[in-house]
């Protein structure tokens, strides 16, 4: 049997060309997300997207569309003719298929929206008619207009009406790829995938940059980062991962620089390399999973000193979040279980016993004096490898 899903989107403040670009991109993203389901179609209908599909596709497609950025809510709907009897029987089907509480009679109300003003009955009249029919057909149900267990929505449109009882929240945000590309410094930890996800939610196309320090970090650690990139691609449609060979940079820092500044200088080198990759790839900004004060090195002083090596905006979406909030979000987006796998990332080695928590810029610059910065950056960028992950592959898994 043919079924339908209505997908709603917000960001109503958008106007003019912005709005039509937004809608076009959103529709394209929805169609890309639907690719695994043969025959499923999406079309725009007055401020919404209507998806036509087969019965058994409804639940998996709902699940998939909940991960499409820009959608605020979703409802499986029955599309019926503009006819009161059709409304009545569809409403009864909605109640019959709803979950009901135990121990007391289930309650409902009917809510009607009439955009088609030529329909002969007005909204309260339709609600009365349909509600009465429901009570007659299903005598165990009661009406409760304030706190109903189920609300039956009837949307009377020009050509047909939509009848539904379920409203599933969407993820919200802006359509993927609506905001341009940014480079995400992706470690194997909990924070950076969440930062990347928040960027994607606002339309950023991610190019992840990972610093790999074999033999100090293993191939399994790299695999973990690839898994994270794949999970993020499941949300954003596509994530490109740049893997930087970072061992030589770290050993050079170890050789030439004072131990308390290892971390500061390492972060500066990472940002320099990321800056270079961003320029090559035309990325508009960098993103990191830093938040203030979470570890000793994430102080404002430290951020300023590290940030000084790049002119690109460095976005830190987690700056206002507590660790528990970050962890909760990591669980929700599905990166947490991978992030906590116990492989070393390159920050946890070379940790000196007494790192400077408030390094000044002058201090860092002086400490870098003996370091062949340009040559190291050049070499690391030259040895960077690139791999792209697509959403379809995460579904195939």
């Amino acid at each position, binding site marked *: 049997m043919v079924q339908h899903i209505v997908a709603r989107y917000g960001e109503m403040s958008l106007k003019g060309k912005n709005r039509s670009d937004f809608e076009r991109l959103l529709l394209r993203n929805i169609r890309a997300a639907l690719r695994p389901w043969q025959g499923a179609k999406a079309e725009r209908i007055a401020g919404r997207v209507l998806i036509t599909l087969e019965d058994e596709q409804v639940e998996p497609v709902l699940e998939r569309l909940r991960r499409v950025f820009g959608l605020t809510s979703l409802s499986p709907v029955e599309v019926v003719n503009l006819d009161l009897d059709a409304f009545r029987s569809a409403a009864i089907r909605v109640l019959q298929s709803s979950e009901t509480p135990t121990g007391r009679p289930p309650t409902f109300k009917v809510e009607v929206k009439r955009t088609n003003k030529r329909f002969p009955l007005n909204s309260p009249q339709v609600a009365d008619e349909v509600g009465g029919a429901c009570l007659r057909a299903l005598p165990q149900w009661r009406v409760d207009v304030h706190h109903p267990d189920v609300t039956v929505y009837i949307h009377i449109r020009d050509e047909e009406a939509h009848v539904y009882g379920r409203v599933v929240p969407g993820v919200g945000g802006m359509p993927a790829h609506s905001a341009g590309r940014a480079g995400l410094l992706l470690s194997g930890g909990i924070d950076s995938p969440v930062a990347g996800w928040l960027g994607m939610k606002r339309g950023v196309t991610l190019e992840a940059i990972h610093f790999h320090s074999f*033999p100090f970090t293993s191939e399994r650690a790299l695999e973990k980062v690839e898994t994270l990139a794949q999970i993020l691609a499941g949300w954003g449609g596509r994530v490109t991962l740049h893997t930087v060979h970072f061992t030589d940079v770290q050993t050079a820092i170890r*050789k030439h620089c004072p131990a308390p500044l290892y971390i500061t200088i390492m972060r500066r080198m990472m940002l320099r390399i990321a800056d270079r990759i961003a320029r090559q790839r035309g990325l508009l900004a960098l993103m990191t999973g830093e938040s203030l004060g979470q570890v000793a090195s994430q102080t404002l002083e430290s951020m300023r000193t590290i940030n000084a090596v790049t002119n690109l905006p460095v976005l830190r979406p987690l700056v206002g979040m507590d660790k528990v909030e970050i962890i909760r979000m990591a669980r929700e987006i599905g990166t947490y279980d991978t992030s906590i796998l116990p*492989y070393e990332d390159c920050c946890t*080695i070379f940790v000196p016993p007494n790192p400077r928590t408030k390094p000044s810029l002058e201090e860092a610059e002086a400490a870098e004096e003996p370091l062949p910065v340009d040559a190291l950056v050049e070499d690391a960028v030259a040895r960077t490898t690139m791999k792209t992950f697509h959403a379809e592959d995460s579904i195939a898994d």
Partner: protein
Amino acid sequence: MEVYLDNAATTPLLPEVERIIQEMFSVYGNPSSLHRKGLEAERRIEAARKQVLRALGVRDGQVVFTGGGTEANNLAIFGATRRHGGRGRHVVTTQVEHPSVLEPFRALEREGWRVTYVAPDADGWVPAERVLEAVTDDTVLVSVMHVNNETGAVLPVAEIGQALRQRPKTIFHVDGIQAFGKIPSAASLAQADMYSVSGHKIGAPKGIGALYIRPGLVLDPVLFGGGQEGGLRSGTENTLGIAALGAAASHASERAAERYQQMSAWSEQFCEALRTIPQCRVHRPREASPYIVSASFPGLRGEVLVHALEAEGVYVSTGSACSSRGGHAKASHVLEVMGLDAAEVTGAIRFSFGWHTDEAAMNRAIEVIRRQVAWLYDTVGTGV
């Protein structure tokens, strides 16, 4: 050049094993079937049983094929204690056993058994007297490994087995997983009532092992079902694996003695060469298998060393591979109970040799170790 020195974790297939597996593809019958196909498969299993007995150096007794070494150890420990629990409530083992022995004993403890875990000396070796002193009239089972999988210590199982003959009510189990196919006639030497073996440590595939049970000893099964393997291991026999284990056992019977001598000379050289690396501490028990060498590089992390050697095609492991859960090294319980300091435990790696290891490979490994260790100490210093 690739040098695989992680043979205590697992070994590549022997060429003759590959051949027999190919051949067994067409011997697909269920050994329990009454028709010719079944008989054909059954014959292969009986032939393999003889090959395993011969490699163990025993003439009679039962060989029960299992799903591997862990299962053989579990069958021995639970099978004996369940059957003979009326004789007492005490069992004896050592602190250096593999988890597939230690964990069954911990499970017995939870069931109310008294378990004595005998401590090793500082070199990882366990004196026979210390084990025998722990044995009382109440002791139902003594389980001691033949060769330790982390240090290569060859424990005095013959002495223990001999002494336990005075106590016919105490059953003696030997975990011979690292000894089988390497020490000639291992089970008869150990005078064991039960002896566990594994296929994939000697060139057979993973998923096949066996428990030898001396004539007259009765066990309870751990798995219940169709009653295969004399009722001790229900489930349709893994004919492919069994034939492969037979072939690997037969290979070992023919060559074990000669290989042991040869390997002794080579591993002696190998240890000598390691000792010339200034930071290296070789852990050599007084009695040690030439197939396993353990060494520490204090200040380095074993895990990092593994990856550094891997970069030049040399494959080794930290402690035992089984304890590196999910690819992350866990501190070795064996090295800890030997009283090594934290830096020695963290910086420990294990070299283990197999049927295909030759002198050239070991020399090449030394060369790579020397280079990588020097680079690592230079890079991270000794303070990390």
